[in-house]
């Protein structure tokens, strides 16, 4: 019980914030990207698909390092964000969200792409002869691919909750501001507080399990005709 009392509950809020932002970014960027890859010619699709997988190959720490460079004062883009737009992404929770999104994006894109590729080309052609591309996407593509898109979203969410390497490099581990559950666990382990580390991991696992089970059940229910 004493370990639970020592828990700084803000880490859960921040983790959730980071994971939700990362998932939203994955859906927003990954859906059109996956659609584009699925509908491209084989060569283009192969190249794009491989490029989209690069963050999965890189150690998250190096993903974080490159993002730190991109958003920091070292790059022109970072300067532009900070000076012209007033956006300070480094050492902010949304910086952590962006980092988690980059790491989770390949998983989202792969899963969504598989869903898009399953749609029979003749259905898309028929729809193309009947309606404009936007309506076709909303009324044919999304309804047919949504189980895969939902699964991709779940995977992205789960991956973002657990992300540590990239987020900690970009956002650090500032208590109450950017310290996520994984960062708190790391700090606890470093500080030799194994009870706290265990408590954090257990609560995360339990909470994550409840959310995932609930979402999966919801999905299964919605998928039933």
């Amino acid at each position, binding site marked *: 019980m004493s370990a639970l009392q020592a828990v700084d509950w803000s880490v859960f809020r921040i983790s959730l914030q980071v994971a939700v932002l990362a998932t939203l970014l994955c859906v927003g960027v990954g859906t059109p990207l996956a659609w584009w890859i699925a509908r491209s010619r084989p060569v283009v699709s192969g190249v794009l698909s491989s490029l989209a997988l690069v963050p999965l190959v890189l150690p998250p720490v190096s993903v974080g390092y490159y993002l730190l460079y991109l958003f920091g004062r070292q790059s022109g883009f970072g300067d532009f964000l900070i000076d012209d737009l007033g956006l300070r992404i480094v050492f902010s929770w949304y910086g952590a969200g962006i980092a988690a999104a980059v790491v989770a994006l390949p998983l989202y894109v792969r899963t969504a792409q598989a869903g898009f590729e399953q749609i*029979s080309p*003749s259905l898309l*052609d*028929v*729809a*193309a*002869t*009947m309606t404009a591309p936007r309506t076709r996407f909303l*009324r044919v593509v999304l309804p*047919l691919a949504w189980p895969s898109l939902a699964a991709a979203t779940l995977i992205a969410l789960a991956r973002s909750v657990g992300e540590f390497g990239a987020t900690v490099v970009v956002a650090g581990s500032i208590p109450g501001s950017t310290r996520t559950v994984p960062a708190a666990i790391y700090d606890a382990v470093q500080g030799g507080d194994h009870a706290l580390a265990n408590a954090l991991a257990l609560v995360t696992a339990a909470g994550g399990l409840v959310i995932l089970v609930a979402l999966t059940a919801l999905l299964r229910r919605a998928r039933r005709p």
Partner: protein
Amino acid sequence: MSDSLLHADFRVDLGAFGLEFAQEMGQETVVIFGPSGSGKSVALRAIAGLLRPSAGRIEIAGRPVFDAAAGLDVPPHQRDAAWVPQDLGLFPHLSVLENVLFGMAGDSVTRRSRAHDLLALTGIEALADRRPRTISGGQAQRVALARAIARERPLLLLDEPFSALDEVIRDSLRGELRRLCRELGRGAVFVTHDLREAYLLADRLVVLVDGHILQTGRPDEPFLHPADRRVAALMGFRNLFRGEVVALGADSVEVQVGAHRWRSAVEPARFRVGEAVDVGVRAERVAMRRNVPEELGPNMLRATLVQDDGYGLNHLLRFRPEVPGPEIEVDLPARPYRVLGVTEGASWTLELAPGDVHLMPVVAD
């Protein structure tokens, strides 16, 4: 032409395959017939706007929809044509009624009432709330037709839509398609590799082979007067020989095939003596005689039966002539086969009526 539904003259290049297609049609059913890989579906897709030709021009219902020179390429959904693919492309997540409603214009009440009318017209009103995967192939076909008609486009583009169905259902659907096109005043381009279907549906038949239109005309034209041996082979001519024109008569041409000299009732002006020709004779049109006359008349030859293959209610018989020359096939229904007593002796006289000896200019393969 003001009542022209389709004016197409275009070329499609797909790597090693090229298609040249030119057709002009009004309110009629044009059947594009050809073997697999001949480019039938490619032609249809180009007209529908699903595939961009590399050159040429397409007009649908008097409106240009593609013009390579002018850089015009109207998107598929804005063309005045409704397309039905081979697998029908029914949306699995929508009910039969929603499938028909999809792509219909107008306010919701009018659309629904028209969709119900169409379901009644195609005999599937009872299925309105069913999902496509719960209905039969024939019913799915009717849904696809109803959905295409619901688009209220003057031109229907149908890509082998009956190919997955059994013959009985195909037969009734063919009749229905003709009726619907007539009643609703639509033109249709129908693609098939089924000769019978092509013949039964077509007001006009277009024979397409290896990306080239070899012949176009009334459906019996390619059947009876194929333009060349490729068309003849497709139209089921089993006897195709190389011959040489040896004499021109007043209303016929004499041709030498091996040691045979046959008279063909064709327009002599189209040929000259010494010219190589392809000679086609339908296996169904060869007459067989048991009693061998002393003196052989013109277009008669003595032959020995060397092969007898029964298929269904017919027999395909293969004869070897007594004089040097190609073997000849005869297609004989079961009843004359029995009456003639084909199994009782191998020696026969065959007769080819001059009207059934068809001459064609030789084309390079």
